[in-house]
């Protein structure tokens, strides 16, 4: 066992640090320290800086405009960005693009698809939404009903998708659709790419409980997709969708733990400024959070080591999801406790980051930022595989406990519902 970084990784980190320092404006204090206008300007500037240095899509091969970085280098870049408080994904749709769609195309796509989509994705010309969930397909993902019917060189896609993050700024969607209604469950699904700016696609924003309109529902009514925009085998969509789970395992955990540490430091400042640190229980709860942040760091190193070693995916991602999503709820509630009655009304700088901790430079005294994080932490145990699903997965696949009773095949609804 050796959790130290090898010398070449330390050298690489030094280069990244120098590079980032040169890229950032003088007097930089973190994204959280900018006002709205400054932030908007910065994001555009920064995205281009990242792209030029290969940091926007670090896992993509260089020939496709990415950084061609190893897993360890990706982890270092992600961490260093957190430490300086600069975003890895400046545009709302960047995460979908760089972390999900890009690797999917790289592994399953044709050369034509890669050549068409990847450069346009990197440039930001194409912005992606992830079209998996539907009103009847949440945890039961493969209960997808959106139908794609062949018509000559096209597919006509009809159905409804919901919960697409950054949907209002997306102009394309990668979607799981049913191309073979005769095949049950996960069989008969295809992974297809389709443009959202067309007559057959209507995007409607959904306001979340934090008052933001970020995610959307998408109504598809004979929306047109090119036949050669199916990724992977027709009918092999489930495999493509699940393939995402194997990509870049372990590259983001260290950065996430660092982000939580920065957040906790900010919370300690709030506790000190409000005098709530005079309360022994508050101090102990802050210390307890500190132990969890440390544990998440240890878990991240384990996941990184596992990813680097190339062993098949293990339980690390389920464990991480369970631990991190619950931690966010715990620490954000502690913040509300420290705010006390101030948790009851919005005041101060609004939150900057939609998911996960606010970046460096965020005002510790802003109750709005803490309240938003507490509200955002609730769906953290729902999306991406709910806590209950994670526990089922751990119980069945890791511990070998008897599986859930499955519904009889004939009771499963087939085909699409349209609207």
């Amino acid at each position, binding site marked *: 066992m050796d959790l130290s970084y090898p010398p070449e990784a330390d050298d690489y980190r030094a280069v990244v640090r120098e590079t980032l320092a040169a890229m950032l404006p003088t007097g930089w204090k973190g994204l959280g320290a900018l006002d709205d206008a400054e932030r908007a300007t910065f994001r555009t500037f920064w995205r281009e800086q990242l792209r030029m240095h290969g940091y926007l899509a670090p896992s993509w091969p260089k020939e496709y405009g990415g950084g061609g970085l190893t897993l360890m280098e990706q982890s270092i870049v992600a961490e260093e960005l957190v430490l300086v408080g600069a975003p890895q994904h400046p545009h709302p749709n960047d995460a979908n693009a760089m972390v999900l769609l890009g690797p999917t195309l790289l592994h399953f796509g044709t050369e034509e698809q890669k050549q068409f989509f990847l450069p346009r994705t990197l440039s930001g010309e194409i912005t992606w939404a992830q079209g998996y969930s539907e009103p009847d397909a949440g945890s039961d993902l493969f209960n997808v009903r959106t139908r794609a019917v062949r018509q000559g060189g096209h597919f006509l896609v009809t159905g409804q998708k919901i919960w697409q993050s950054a949907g209002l700024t997306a102009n394309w969607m990668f979607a799981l659709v049913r191309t073979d209604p005769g095949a049950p469950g996960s069989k008969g699904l295809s992974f297809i790419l389709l443009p959202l700016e067309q007559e057959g696609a209507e995007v409607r924003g959904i306001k979340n409980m934090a008052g933001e309109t970020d995610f959307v529902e998408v109504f598809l009514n004979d929306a047109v997709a090119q036949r050669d925009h199916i990724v992977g085998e027709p009918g092999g969509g489930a495999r493509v969708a699940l393939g995402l789970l194997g990509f870049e395992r372990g590259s983001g955990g260290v950065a996430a733990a660092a982000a939580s540490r920065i957040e906790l430091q900010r919370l300690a400042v709030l506790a000190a400024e409000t005098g709530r640190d005079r309360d022994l229980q508050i101090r102990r709860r802050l210390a307890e959070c500190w132990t969890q942040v440390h544990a998440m760091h240890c878990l991240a190193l384990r996941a990184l080591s596992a990813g680097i070693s190339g062993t098949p995916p293990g*339980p690390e991602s389920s464990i991480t999801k369970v631990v991190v999503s619950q931690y966010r709820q715990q620490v954000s509630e502690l913040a509300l406790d420290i705010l006390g009655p101030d948790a009851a009304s919005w005041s101060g700088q609004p939150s900057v980051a939609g998911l996960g901790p606010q970046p460096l430079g965020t005002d510790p005294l802003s109750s709005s930022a803490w309240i938003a994080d507490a509200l955002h932490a609730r769906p953290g145990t729902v999306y991406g595989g709910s806590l209950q699903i994670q526990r089922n997965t751990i119980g069945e696949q890791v511990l070998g406990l008897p599986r859930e009773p499955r519904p009889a095949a004939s009771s499963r609804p087939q085909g699409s519902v349209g609207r």
Partner: protein
Amino acid sequence: MRYALSVEQDALARETTKFLTAALPAERDAVLRGEVGFDGERWSKACAEVGLASIGIAERHGGAGGSLLDIAVTLEASGRTLTSLPVCAAAVGMILLDDLAEEQHGRDLLERLGTGDLIPSWVGLHHASALSAEEDGGGWRISGTVRHVVNCGATSVIAFAGTTEGPRAFEAELDQAGITVHHERAVDPTRPLSTLVLDRAVMRPLHPAPLAAARLAVLRARVDIVQAAEQVGVAAAALDMAVEYAKTRTQFGRRIGAFQSIKHLLADMYVDVEVARDTTRYAAWAADDPQQDIVQLGHITRAFVDPRVSRVCAGNLQILGGIGYTWEHPSHLYYKRALTSERLTTDTSSHLDAIATRIGIAPSSDGRTSQQAETFEDSGIPSVGRQAFEPKSLG
């Protein structure tokens, strides 16, 4: 970067497990019958064949020169079976003696520890010492009473006692006029406890000079970390027991592990064990790195691990239903080990308070906010990769 144990460490874990598993049935029967003690021959074998009492002794002292992680690996195995063999006592002995003992006296102690001849108990390391020491002629006499001393057939005591110039470390055979050992009725029958009454007991200095507080703190942390490893073993065994039961016990026409409530409880227990192990392994690995704040790591690791271990052992009792409540079934042993380990030396609240202080969270009385934030940042755990650039002082 490699999280997995080395080939040698894996082998050590396997050998230790195999040895202790072979001892388990007889030990378990004895414990449940109320017998106290361990098989001396088996212990000598363990020392000779597996090296359980010499792995962590430096090569210059005649040991195998292993790391704290090596010791931790054996402790995790011993926690799994709750062995009566003095594995933990030997581990603490290795940590304390290897660091403090000097000259011939020290080398003799280490040799006898390694062969299994010397089995230590230890007092005054975690708690402000109830013991005081005074010079008498050329030697020292130690007085005081200490309760709840781990006594796995100890032959010797390592004592940290207060003197006018600060705490000193001493050692002596238990069997002497000045020391009376009163056996307590330990709640955890697998870990006998005693009250030691020292009345001007003659003891030899283990170390020529009084010990700096920082040095004692490091020794405490090293002991805490290997005990966390033992805790991980305790929890792992409790989890295994519960999973096994859930796969075999049938009610309502199916194995109870099919029910989500059971399945989910087990999944949570599994996560607890995994993160407890990850954190403990990290600490044991990092403990030998002088750039790490090992005192803080000791506090963090115990504060994180202990409550989770208790939770897992309690979860095991829940899953087992009525049977878990009986004397016959061993799950109560694991629960009792967890609940006593969490409280025997330093409890979780004390660890949390120490962490809070070390990271600079203190009551603000005079607007020292920005100073505190600085301290917080400076004394935070550096990410492993940062050490090469910003070695943090341990002060």
